[in-house]
């Protein structure tokens, strides 16, 4: 680690990349990031503080109105629910994937990755189909006799959470699978020879060692969920707005850019705080798989 102060990039034969090569490799990427991410974000934050004049009024409006704070809290809560559900549903799948070999492993892997090839819109539309009054879920529930009347499923927060979990699940499964796969088989053998049952091997060794995968998956899912737009807009109830929908409304319908920008500012603050907390406790380089 100490030798890697100047450049962290190497040729395959072990020579370091020159400064110029590093620049050429990374410049296009950073240029895109700067233009489509940093510049507009800075612009929005600028608007939130300086329109119509230098002021904190836009933020005051977010905080003062309980409707808006409720939207923010609902968004946080939904993102947390989605993250929690993804961990619970994703971990077993990732664990299974890391244990099986051959054709079955390939099949499960494809099942996890395949949904990523269709758009979020398609997957959300599929759920709205299932959640309809006469949709598959309601007819199934009535056939089994759980209910005699169709239940209202579409346009509820529950529908949003379920569909978002489905859409984001791969982003939880893949990092966990990655860390589980990187645990050497010998650790399991060592634990067994030292007297651990399979359950204790799991709780004492596998689970703690997979935590970095759970953390990076959670971070990915949580942050994506915070800004999710399509799914809440299509499946959610108009009375239970989430931040992304609110921002879109403010920009396209009310044309209140300063207020929309302030909402984005608050969201950015949350995300930054979270990233800071996580980077302190979890070390980003380790999340990304660096050996220490």
């Amino acid at each position, binding site marked *: 680690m100490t030798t890697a102060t100047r450049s962290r990039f190497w040729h395959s034969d072990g020579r370091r990349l020159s400064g110029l090569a590093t620049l050429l490799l990374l410049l296009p990427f950073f240029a895109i990031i700067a233009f489509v991410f940093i510049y507009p974000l800075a612009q929005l934050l600028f608007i939130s503080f300086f329109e119509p004049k230098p002021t904190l009024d836009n933020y005051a409006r977010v905080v003062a109105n309980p409707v808006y704070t409720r939207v923010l809290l609902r968004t946080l809560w939904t993102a947390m629910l989605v993250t929690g559900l993804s961990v619970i549903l994703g971990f077993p799948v990732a664990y299974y994937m890391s244990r099986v070999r051959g054709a079955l492993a390939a099949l499960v892997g494809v099942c996890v990755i395949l949904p990523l090839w269709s758009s979020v819109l398609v997957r959300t539309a599929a759920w709205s189909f299932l959640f309809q009054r006469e949709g598959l879920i309601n007819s199934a529930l009535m056939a089994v006799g759980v209910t005699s009347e169709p239940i209202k499923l579409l346009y509820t927060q529950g529908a949003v959470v379920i569909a978002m979990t489905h859409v984001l699940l791969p982003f939880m499964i893949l990092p966990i699978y990655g860390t589980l796969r990187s645990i050497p088989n*010998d650790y399991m*053998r*060592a634990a*067994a*020879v030292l007297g651990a049952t399979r359950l204790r091997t799991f709780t*004492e060794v596998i689970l703690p060692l997979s935590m970095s995968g759970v953390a990076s998956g959670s971070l990915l899912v949580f942050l994506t969920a915070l800004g999710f737009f399509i799914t809440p807009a299509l499946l959610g109830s108009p009375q239970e707005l989430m931040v992304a929908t609110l921002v879109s409304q403010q920009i396209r319908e009310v044309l209140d850019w300063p207020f929309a920008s302030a909402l984005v500012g608050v969201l950015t603050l949350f995300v930054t705080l979270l990233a800071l907390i996580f980077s302190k406790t979890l070390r980003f380089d380790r999340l990304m798989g660096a050996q220490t």
Partner: protein
Amino acid sequence: MNVNYPSDKVQAAGAAVRIRRLEKRFQSVIAVDGVDIDVSAGEFLALLGPSGSGKTTILMSVAGFEFPTSGSISVGTEDLTYVPANKRNLGMVFQNYTLFPHMSVLDNVAFPLKMRGVPKAERYARAEEALATVRLAGYGSRHPNQLSGGQQQRVALARAIVYRPRVLLMDEPLSALDKNLREEMQLEIKRLHAELGITVIFVTHDQSEALTMADRVAVLKDGRIQQIGPSRELYERPANLFTAGFIGEMNFINVTAEGSGGNISVLLPSGERWQLPASAAVEPLTGCQKAVLAVRPERLQLGDAHNGFTFRVKVDDVVYAGSASLLIGTLPDSTEIRARLPGASDLSALALGSTAVFTIPKEAILLYPGAAQ
């Protein structure tokens, strides 16, 4: 599940290990092919063999990670053939240390005691004690990645002995270490073995390691035992051609042998005929057949020493190496001959391309049926 372990002050003595007709197949590959090994209580046995000879598979069967296709394994009086690994109560040290990276050194060493339900205070006390045994007292609070490779392997040793298993299994435990550390750890393991009286089965592909550390060495090839015996026996009287070539350096000369009464007459490529004592034949010879005459390079003497057979060698190279010099030469039929000559030998007459006379003492000659490649 609670595994019994001897009470605190009682020295855990080793247990005998019996491996009977062990066979392990992976699909069409026969990894272990009818192996019988008896390790007596407290013995240090090394499994030695080329890559793919089945050493790891045998050890994994004893540890309980592989279940044999047929045969049986017992430790002490218990048949463990199909007992799961976590109920065998054996110690094991892996090649790559396998210390759990998320636990401190002390927690690593205390882990097996935790699995056995030992109360916290006691298990930490015993873990400290085990760390002291491997001379790492005071390192408990560190994390494994803060230790050198040798230290990590010693922690792994402490963790493997803290619950006083009767048998300690090691699969190439030192091959990840550099030479100096390896020699230090060899001594450490020998010392622990003597101190604890534990039975050790030690896999290695380093023959000098096997010969210096083990009470007995089992030589394996293609899943079969070639020879089991004390180092000295293996070196001085290898049981077959494979062991003769595998252990140490050996000169091989293809001959035709004919047994007659108490003597064996061999016909050398040069046309010379030597009369050898019957004891030279390691495996019985029948009638007139192709055989291989084997002799260690250090047993060859320069000049006519009047105590054996003399023969001529064309000198191809002389490598001076301090305590001994290595002479590489050829017989008239171009069989390569190597001789190790004591450092003080007079090498001035050995010009490259010249012919030197060597003596083979009679008792240094071994004879095997077959032909060297």
